[in-house]
């Protein structure tokens, strides 16, 4: 069996190595991937023609807060000057992708990337890709194993539908990597993709708080960049308010956000326009650190990382390294077919059958 052929080192839970280079995945994660793949052997496999990368955190990224329309807020523009004090910058990103379907479930792959910049050099560690076969039978087991492992919680959560499982598993891996980076770094800027909003199944408040606390204790500052935001203030998109400000600057909204449902923001929300150009981003900064330190962290980012269109290069690279290309998807499909002796079939595309050249959407 494949599982016996592999020989890899494991990392004890939360006993993180001192350097990011040595960051490794726990054995259980790899075993989980292999175990899930074992139940797929000799099934029929329909490779996905349309492949879309899903960034982890896709759903909670822009989870509320919603700024109410009660007029008690103020907008403050904070001009920034780069702080050239040598500070390491690290970024984490995770991608997942559906690579096909079997008779009993879906096949997906997850990959994570950590990029860090020290002494003017970028370094990266790519973890994966890890293929998973998720079925109705094993999805709960996989998901809860993930949660137990990463979040040290025995409380079982309901696994979502098969379609969303890949994203949720990606989120869990991302949290683990964020934890790894927080534990391995010291006095660094840690960049996350998404927001600091907690309260979802993949981002429990206690876990997120713990992550930020570990980072704080090691004098790290977490800056979470959201690529897209639907946050609106008086009907206007939040990022639109920064248009007239001279970069680099932060826009702080002082007011009373209203939270919907179980969502809980663990960060102060800013709009960051760090360079000239059309882009500005929602930036969440750990709210438990003093405001001066928040601003200083962004200034250190300006002084230590390359910024293009207001987006940090470290985070951009993390995204690039984790994203799956079409070529990689074919490679993963080949790996799965060979390892599990799957029989490749091509199910008719219903849309194409019905609508011919007009059936361009995803099948179904």
């Amino acid at each position, binding site marked *: 069996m*494949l599982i016996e052929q*592999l020989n*890899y080192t494991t990392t004890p839970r939360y006993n993180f190595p001192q350097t990011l*280079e040595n960051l*490794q*995945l726990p054995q259980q994660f*790899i075993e989980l*991937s*292999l175990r899930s793949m074992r139940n797929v052997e000799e099934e029929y496999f329909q490779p996905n023609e349309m492949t879309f990368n899903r960034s982890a955190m896709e759903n909670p990224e822009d989870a509320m807060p919603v700024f109410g329309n009660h007029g008690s807020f103020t907008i403050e523009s904070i001009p920034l000057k780069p702080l050239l004090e040598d500070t390491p910058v690290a970024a984490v990103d995770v991608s997942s992708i559906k690579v096909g379907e079997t008779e009993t479930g879906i096949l997906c*792959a997850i990959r994570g990337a950590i*990029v860090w910049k020290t002494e003017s*050099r*970028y*370094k*990266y*560690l*790519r*973890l*994966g*890709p*890890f*293929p998973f076969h998720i079925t109705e039978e094993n999805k709960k087991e996989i998901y809860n194993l993930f949660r137990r492992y990463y979040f040290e919680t025995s409380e079982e959560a309901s696994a979502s539908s098969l379609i969303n499982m890949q994203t949720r598993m990606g989120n869990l891996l991302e949290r683990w990597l964020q934890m790894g980076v927080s534990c391995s770094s010291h006095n660094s800027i840690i960049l996350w993709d998404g927001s600091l909003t907690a309260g979802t199944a993949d981002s429990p408040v206690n876990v997120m708080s713990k992550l930020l606390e570990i980072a704080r204790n090691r004098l790290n500052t977490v800056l979470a960049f959201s690529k897209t935001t639907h946050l609106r203030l008086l009907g206007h998109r939040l990022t639109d308010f920064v248009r007239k400000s001279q970069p680099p600057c932060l826009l702080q909204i002082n007011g009373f956000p209203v939270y919907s449902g179980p969502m809980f923001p663990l960060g102060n929300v800013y709009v960051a326009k760090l360079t000239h150009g059309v882009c500005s981003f929602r930036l969440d900064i750990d709210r438990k650190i003093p405001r001066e330190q928040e601003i200083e962290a962004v200034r250190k980012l300006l002084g230590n990382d390359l910024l293009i269109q207001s987006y940090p290069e470290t985070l951009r*690279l993390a995204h*690039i*390294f984790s994203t799956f*290309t*079409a*070529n*990689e*998807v*074919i*490679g*993963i499909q*080949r*790996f799965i077919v*060979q390892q599990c002796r799957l029989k490749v079939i091509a199910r008719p595309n219903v849309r194409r059958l019905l609508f011919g050249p007009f059936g361009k959407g995803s099948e179904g």
Partner: protein
Amino acid sequence: MRIYKKEGNTVEILCFPSEKVEKGDYLFIEDPKANRGLVTQVVDVQFANVPGILEELLRDSTTDDYVHGGNFDPLEVSSHINHIQDALVLICKIRGAVQNGKLLVNPSWLPSRSKSKIKRLPITSLLTFVKINEDLPIDVGETKEASVLAIDARALDGKLNIVTGKKETGKSHLSKLLVLGLIDYGATVVVLDLNGEYVNLGFSSKGEKNEYYDKVHVLTSGANLKVSLAQMDLQVMLNILVHALNLPGTSTREFRRIWRFLQQRQAFTLQELGEAIRNWKCNQHVRDALFSRYYSLLNSGFFTDNLAEATTFEELFQKVQTGGALVLNLRDVSSVDRQIVVEYMLGKLVELLTEWKMRAVFLFAEEAHLYLRETYWDDIVTRMRHFGVFTTFVTNQPDTIRENIYRQADNIFLFNFTNERDLETVSRAARVDSETVKSIARDLPPHYCLILGKAVKDFPMVAKVKALDVQTMGHTRLFFTDKD
């Protein structure tokens, strides 16, 4: 390997790097259900246009200079991804088809894309199957698979051949090999040797006499190759005067009269010819023109009044009638004298062949543009071939050979060319598609030859030309010589 596409007579085959296939290899696409298959040849190897490859390469190039790192890939999925990245498309030309065990030239069907099996076709199997090596084999060299490649001497019989390639790739070596191969089977060969490269064919590489010593006769103009006017035919003489020495029309008419005058007097000597021109009643300009040509003939050293030292071609050809070569050494011979000698030789050849004094001659002409007059090209391809002159042109300047020669060439022995224009010229050959010529010839290493045409039954093959134990090298005078 899987069939990807077919367009015209080009088949594209998807292949992974582990399946070692190179340009020039033959593949057999077998359709087991239909009990038939296609014989194809790989003419180019390209990367498969895998989706997402640009992103992949851009990302990888990012890591070259300013980003360093590693991958933790315990399942080794990346090896599969690399495999996909390195996927190849083999551009193949259909060379034939096999149906019920028989070889067909023009298949009108397509094998199944999903069911066909593709495998490499060893050259030895192909050689046996298409019966290239028949009863008069000339061992040309070896294939990439180290099997012997021999062509049938009959494939050169009655044929027009071209040996071409850039300098120092082995053209002359191959033509010597063909010359000796033909001699082995009793053929008569005439070599127009521009650089004196064939003069030592009768000696081994150690300088000792070899089996061809008595069969190779080297003729050097002015030394052991002289002719008397009495041996000359008027037409041959006129050809020399008009084509080699550019004698104008009026003067040619006067010369004809002088010649007839000497004929009546039975006085065919150079001295008599000089006297006749001097005393001939004609325009002074004509006389001057005739005199200048007369002195050219005199100074060439090719003509003699001494019948004892005059060469009798009938006798010479008699010597090589059962297998041998007359090597016309044109080294150190001036351009005009070269043309005089070649005009005479070709005229004599046609004369002997017309009178059936000889059966046929294999003519090897090195850099023929330097001594063949314009009208001879067509003559050689059409008229002279019917008389039994079967020519092999050897050149490193393919554009010096006319396009119609390429079109009518039966065999082309092609060595490496890198120049696009040269490749373009050669690709006009009718016996093969231009893509094959351009793609394969460009990558041929020295001494490797792409053989096209009847010699390989139109299955282009690459051979490493075998070494010869004869003194083959032409003497190039060098400035820097070895100290010892």
